[in-house]
């Protein structure tokens, strides 16, 4: 590749051709501010509409200013990133953006993590000279996401996520000129759109225009109610990210502190969704083996590949887009929804309390889980198996609001019996983890042999679509992995067209899996953060004494005591579900 030499603010930069001025400036230590630009490096995710115009710089010989995020280097270019013309233009543009923005920082859910707010601080804006009409829109609350697009700055990141990465197409720019905004087709409610509630739009929105529906009030009320036994479950990905909210380095595991904080908050029982993840593996693994065995025996009707079903964003996606294929995914519920009935039908009975007096709260990296726990099929006489699902961010706020000094908390352990888990369930939180966990169990159950090497390194990584062949003692099992719904769509289309070579496919809606979930602390476009969270989970797995789901003693006891056998009648009733054709009633703009 050709090297280009150019001068930026008097410093000589040498970069490969086709480098943007933004990146070239970074190589010589110059940070040009950006708002709409967004990138998740190594994950094939980039947003560069060139819309906000705060990144403008002066290029000698050019008539107007150039957007650094969108202008490529050229030999001999002379660039000025902070002369008076540039500074004045940048500040004026920001003042304009702020002039069409409600100044609600005091009460805004995004305050403190808001990129617009921090840019206003960085540029030292103290007044907004250009006052005028502000564009106003209807606020839209869906089961998981709130759209308050008065705060939208048209960076189009959500649109890029929803269209290019997720191929859902629920959000697009609508209207023209001053009223232009990103919204579902015909400015309908998100609930009427094909939105999967994956929350990826929320995770990239620089402002408070897109946020999660906050359920922490409901949880506080439940905790204060002496008549209720409040049980909490925490998903694997939460422990790898929660620390970031308290200033700890990304990738710091805070399992023990998290448990301690939850206890302080007043939860009666602090359990682990990981326990339910082990249960998921028992059910899903058994289902896989069953389909596989039938297939090998020549049953041509058996549906292969089997698709994982533990991600509710993904479930919503195929219910909307591929309803005709809804027989293919495993019928196993997600770990969150497996935990619910075990808590309310098994544990509550053990405690001798009515299920209605038990409140199950889940702490999730996920916004789709907020919707999932409200689904009718997960309720008994109107009582949801899981009452409230909080995001990692909401938990952090709760901890802060309760005056708990997180960093100095002593480490604590989960309660039993629903708090014991294996390494297999921990890695559920990252892409490839579910299928690796399934392989560990399925291998041993199928071959009857002990697995020598527990780590399936070939299933790990961040490439968009991965595949590997695992040797089940002479039987090659083809595994596919996709994270991000656009990648999932490709694998699904292959299946539909009869081109799929896989026996089992793991799909996670969020890029990176749940560690990159829509409810996680904001990564602000730093893919290193996501990678560090993944390695934290693999570290926790490696340190666990038990690393295969079917060896979890409490799981074995649960089957003996209550469930019977995997995919048996009782587990079928409590731990499996069915899917719906939701393609009708979803409006997409043609």
């Amino acid at each position, binding site marked *: 590749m050709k090297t280009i030499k150019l001068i930026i603010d008097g410093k000589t930069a040498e970069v490969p051709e086709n480098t943007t001025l933004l990146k070239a400036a970074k190589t010589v230590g110059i940070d040009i501010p950006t708002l709409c630009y967004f990138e998740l490096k190594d994950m094939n995710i980039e947003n560069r509409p060139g819309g906000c115009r705060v990144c403008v710089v002066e290029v000698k010989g050019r008539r107007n200013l150039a957007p650094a995020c969108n202008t490529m280097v050229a030999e001999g270019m002379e660039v000025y990133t902070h002369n008076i013309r540039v500074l004045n233009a940048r500040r004026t543009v920001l003042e304009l953006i702020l002039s069409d923005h409600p100044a609600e920082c005091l009460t805004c859910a995004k305050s403190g993590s808001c990129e617009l707010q921090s840019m206003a601080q960085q540029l030292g804006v103290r007044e907004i000279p250009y006052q005028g009409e502000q564009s106003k829109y209807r606020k839209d609350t869906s089961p998981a996401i709130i759209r308050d697009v008065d705060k939208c700055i048209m960076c189009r990141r959500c649109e890029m996520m929803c269209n290019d990465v997720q191929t859902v197409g629920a959000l697009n720019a609508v*209207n023209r*000129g001053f009223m232009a905004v990103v919204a579902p087709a015909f400015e309908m409610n998100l609930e009427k759109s094909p939105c999967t509630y994956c929350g990826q739009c929320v995770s990239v929105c620089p402002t408070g225009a897109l946020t999660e529906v906050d359920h922490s009030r409901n949880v506080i009320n439940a905790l204060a109610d002496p008549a209720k036994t409040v049980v909490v479950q925490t998903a694997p990905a939460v422990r790898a990210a929660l620390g970031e909210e308290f200033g700890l380095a990304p990738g710091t595991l805070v399992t023990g502190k998290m448990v301690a904080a939850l206890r302080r908050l007043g939860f009666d029982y602090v359990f682990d969704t990981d326990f339910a993840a082990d249960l998921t593996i028992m059910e899903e693994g058994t289902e896989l083996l069953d389909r596989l065995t039938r297939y090998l025996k020549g049953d041509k009707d058996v549906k292969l590949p089997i698709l994982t079903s533990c991600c509710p964003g993904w479930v919503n996606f195929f219910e909307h887009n591929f309803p005709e294929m809804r027989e293919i995914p495993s019928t196993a519920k997600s770990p969150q929804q497996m935990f619910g009935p075990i808590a309310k039908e098994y544990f509550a009975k053990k405690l001798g309390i009515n299920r209605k007096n038990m409140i199950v709260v889940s702490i999730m990296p996920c916004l789709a889980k907020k919707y999932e726990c409200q689904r009718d099929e997960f309720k008994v006489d109107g009582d949801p198996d899981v009452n409230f699902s909080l995001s990692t961010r909401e938990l952090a706020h709760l901890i802060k609001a309760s005056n708990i000094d997180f960093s100095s908390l002593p480490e604590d352990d989960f309660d039993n019996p629903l708090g014991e888990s294996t390494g297999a369930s921990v890695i559920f939180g990252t892409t490839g983890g579910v299928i690796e966990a399934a392989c560990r169990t399925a291998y041993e159950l199928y071959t009857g042999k002990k697995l020598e090497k527990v780590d399936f390194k070939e299933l790990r990584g961040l490439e968009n679509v991965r595949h590997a062949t695992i040797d089940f003692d002479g039987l090659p099992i083809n595994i596919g992995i996709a994270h991000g719904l656009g990648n999932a769509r490709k694998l699904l289309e292959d299946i539909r067209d009869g081109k799929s070579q896989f026996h089992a496919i793991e799909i996670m809606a969020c890029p990176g899996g749940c560690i990159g979930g829509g409810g996680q602390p904001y990564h602000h476009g730093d893919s290193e953060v996501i990678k560090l969270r993944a390695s934290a989970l693999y570290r926790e797995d490696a340190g666990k004494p038990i690393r295969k789901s079917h060896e979890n003693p409490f799981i074995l006891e649960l089957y003996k005591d209550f469930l019977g056998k995997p995919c048996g009648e009782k587990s079928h009733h409590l731990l499996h579900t069915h899917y719906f054709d939701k393609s009708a009633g979803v409006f997409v703009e043609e």
Partner: protein
Amino acid sequence: MARQIRIALRNCGVIDPERIEDYISRDGYMALATVLTELSPEAVIEILKKSGLRGRGGGGFPAGLKWEITRKVQADQKYVVCNADEGDPGAFMDRSILEGDPHAVLEAMTINGYCTGASKGLIYIRAEYPLAVERLKTAMKQSREMGLLGNNILQTGFNFDIDIRYGAGAFVCGEETALIHSMEGLRGEPTVKPPFPSVEGYLKKPTNVNNVETFANVPVIINKGWEWFASIGTEKSKGTKVFALAGKINNVGLVEVPMGTTLREVIYEIGGGIQGGKEFKAAQTGGPSGGCLTKKHLDTPIDYDNLIAAGSMMGSGGLIVMDEDDCMVAIAKFYLGFTVEESCGKCSPCRIGNKRLFELLEKITQGNGTMEDIDKLRNLSTVIKDTSLCGLGQSSPNPVLSTIENFIGEYHEHVKDKKCRSKVCKSMMQYLVVPEKCIGCTLCARNCPVNAISGERKQVHLIDQEKCIKCGACMEKCKFNAIIIN
């Protein structure tokens, strides 16, 4: 006496646009035949480059160079696009050409296809031009029947066909990248250039986009030679330009004049002067993206570069003449109103900045402006031009800047004296009763819709300025001319 020379309009008003024979009798399709049988693509491009033809859609980019760039990009498929979106308010040059001489555009597009290596042409035309569409369709049918369009044109083995695409009428869809997105079924909004359409355009393939008038010039240049064409016009702007004369001019209409004709010649000799013998104040060229030319520009030869130097631009050829009755602040506000409506909303300076410009102008025309507001207008205009993504925002403040530059006095009057000398800005006007003339007949008071007029019978009446909504009913009714506008 200044003369018009009709090159782009050569057949308009002369031939029956629905008869291909008429076109052929005037050397129609000869250029195509010559090109296909006698000239290499490079040779044609060379002719065009030497002719000095520049794009008539606004930017003035050399046409030959654009064709050459498109030719040089390697691709399995290329496209020729004719931009017939024509969104400037008051402009109808392109429509007239398509309605009067559709074959010229088809012929030129086919020649372009031969030169660039494209086999497919698309005409992007606003749906509000049904007659032009009809005539294009008729023309395409005829030329296909005669083997002048479609497969194996004139039996030379060259294939080229043309389709029509309809624009939804948004002004910004005339911008070439927005136009391409619109044809692709995407939101009609511009994207950052480069890549230019010539390199990556429709369906990501190299796409040569030219304006209707640009195309209409091509066949004659081939037939008559580049020397002839280059002999017309100024050093850097060759040939002619079609203008749509509008506003306070006697002969409203389409004119085609050699580049370098002065504004005075256009207005007074060709356009027949100002209506009612009033005094010329300014002429807006370049539509909403342009600026105004004033008395001091009357003798400037009109070409691309001189117009830019004068703070305006050629644009697509709208030329609106204003006289002493026009308020320049209101004119600026009018254009900004258009831009605010037509901005696509993609980039912040244009989306929000133009709105703020409009609001500031509104404030000034309502008599609430301050001197600081004029400074804000200047700074904001400069920044919007400097930072906007596409040509719309990069030029939308021109009317503001050029009226401030040339008519700062009027701005000051609005701000300091709360006066609009042209009596256009209603909020600044005061309806007053002249006591000497009022006989106290009460007619005005009885006709005021908001009861703003008080006074006893046979007493001098008084208009309450707070209540008055400036409808003018009183003045109309008063039989003694006792009510005046201040």
